[in-house]
């Protein structure tokens, strides 16, 4: 069931113009960790934009997800410097430790794994981020230690 109050608390912060669409979706994504279908229908009505447009925006930008994400967001940087310093192998190691491909969430809903174009901490490559915390100069042997910090 849709939590009307929760959605309203987001919508009331905006004036309801079509250009509010992206910020509203960002707020929903931040709070719900994904964009639930019923909520999107309400957003479309309220902003007076077609649902198809909401869908096109929601699928164009990498930040948005139509399926629920895990409790912890894991982002492995694949920027140029990270690529040169083994970012791809770091990704593969994280992926095999969690048993999921990038873009997916573990069955226990604890971790979602994503790649990112650049986190802007290139001097400390390779870098990954778990939620808001950066992990610098990562090596494969540190992966299980880092993941352990977040496991229940």
């Amino acid at each position, binding site marked *: 069931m849709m939590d009307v109050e929760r959605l309203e608390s987001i919508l009331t912060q905006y004036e309801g113009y079509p250009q509010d669409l992206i910020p509203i979706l960002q707020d929903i994504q931040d709070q719900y960790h994904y964009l639930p279908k019923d909520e999107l229908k309400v957003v479309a009505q309220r902003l007076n934009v077609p649902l198809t447009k909401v869908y096109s925006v929601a699928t164009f930008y990498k930040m948005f997800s139509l399926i629920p994400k895990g409790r912890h967001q894991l982002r492995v940087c694949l920027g140029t410097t990270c690529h040169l310093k083994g970012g791809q*192998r770091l990704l593969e190691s994280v992926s095999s430790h969690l048993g999921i491909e990038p873009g997916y969430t573990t069955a226990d809903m604890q971790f979602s794994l994503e790649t990112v174009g650049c986190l802007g901490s290139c001097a400390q490559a390779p870098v990954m981020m778990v939620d808001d915390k950066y992990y610098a100069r990562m090596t494969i*042997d540190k992966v299980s230690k880092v993941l352990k910090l977040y496991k229940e």
Partner: protein
Amino acid sequence: MPKIESVDHLTEYRRQIRAQRDPKQQQILVCSGPGCLPLGSTEVAGAFQEQMQEKGLQGKVILKSTGCHGLCAHGVRVLLRPQEIAYQKVTPEDVPEIVETTLIGGKVVERLVYQDPDSGQTAVHKSEIPFYQGQKPLVLRKLDEIDPESLDDYLVVGGYRTLRKVLFKMSPEEVIDAVERSGLRGRGGAGFLTGRKWRLCRQVPGEVKFVICNGDEGDPGAFMDRAVMEGDPHAIIEGMIVGGYAIGAHQGYIYVRHEYPLAVKRLTQAVAQAREFGLLGNNILRSGFDFDIKISQGSGAFVCGEETALIASIEGNIGEPMPRPPYPAQKGLFGMPTVINNVETWANVPEIINMGPEWFAALGTEKSKGTKVFSLVGAVNHTGLVEVPMGTTLRQIIFELGGGIPGGREFKAVQTGGPSGGCIPKQFLDLPVDYDSLQEVGSIMGSGGMIVMDTTSCMVDVARYFISFLFEESCGKCTPCREGLRQLLNILNDITSGEGKEEHITLMEEICTTMASASLCGLGQSAANPVLTTLKYFRAEYEAHIRDKKCPALVCRPLLTYTIDPEACTACLACVRECPVGAISGPKKEAQHIDQDICIKCGRCHDVCQFDAVKVE
């Protein structure tokens, strides 16, 4: 913070806070920039806080978390003022010693000062470190000095002085004239003359106009805009108010990528402070000029760094570029004339007006004026942010400031300009870096990323990397970019996995030419640059992949063979545990062996081996 009602009030307030500050007072400035933050600057600052309390230094010593100090390689950096002692690689465990020895004892902690990678010579003070010596910081100048969350700090170092000058002593035409005479060109990539852009926009009739700051720094390897947004947000705001006044806009937007959460936070905070203080809003300082700023967050699309795509994104649409003309200066945000400049461009504006256009134009080369910030990363000793006059050579930046290549390896190439840039080989090390000379060798200035590569980097793999990045990020609107990138990626995947054919090289060149001439926006038009430059300067490497099925730099995994040296193997079994396919086995307590039929060449055994026993050929 009081609400500032007039110019005199601003002057008086600045005088008051200056009077309260003692330039001789001991300051601890902990770098919290993009490089040091992931290394634990928050913990270091916390440790100082604790120690100060313990030693009763509160009130006597000022502790600040600042923006980027530049030399990221040796983070966490701590600068002690007024002595200008620069400590590096500081951990929370070092803090008690710094407090005891330096703050209380007045002596230097020798083990925490800069040491030259070759000679081993040490340097205690910031000004003696070679990394800083060739620099000319304008945009980065305040980053290791001010607390980015404090408007007072910005005011103390002369912030919003330019705003006052502009609003009360200059006409909009005079402002545009000054920016034009300074020769400032856009720091986001294409290098269009900023003053000319402003003039064009001012001349377009219309009541409603906008200014936008492009903070969608998507180029992998570039983080100067992040450092400025996080470290000196008010400089951007001040620049934008000046720009708004010049073109006749009353609303500005700062578009920041959501991958930079701290930049979003700092800018939001700074805009709120400026508004509360009376520097944004209606009738700023009773000048009759109204201006306000909204923060707009990106949602993870590289193409939104392109100005028309960025505008579409602020309007609430998907970030697809539009054909130009009309240029945003004529018809931009919500169909209104709009000036859009990048973070570094805006941050240059206050200083240009303040010091005068002639002062700025005296720096740099004939056609590229001023300074440029570069993020120097990759295979270089001193990774970090550098700001040098335009026209400084690549050799000076990489070898003098950057301290050369680590491990005594050889320089191979430097990649500038992000995914749309090119790889510049050794023979151009003496190239003066400016917009035009970079273009002459097939690269671009871009936003200023500078990724140094040594002999361990494979140039075919680098080209494949950029094409794969751009393939992911292409919005898909126009065919040459969407399909061209797909074909290039397929070919490069073939070449790097040993399936390359002789005719691939000509085919790639043809695709590149078509993409450059027929794509809709800058992304597609320049997407071929990484392929074209590597083909031009490193053709032999392509040929080795295609003809000999070899990767000379030992990077392209399908072309490699992993084996274990029985002499070096200690049977620690780290590789056995790491191998995802169970290809490594052997008797207990004896050297292990890789089964080549099972091995998927992921290289993880090589990475985890502590004894260098896994060999690659």
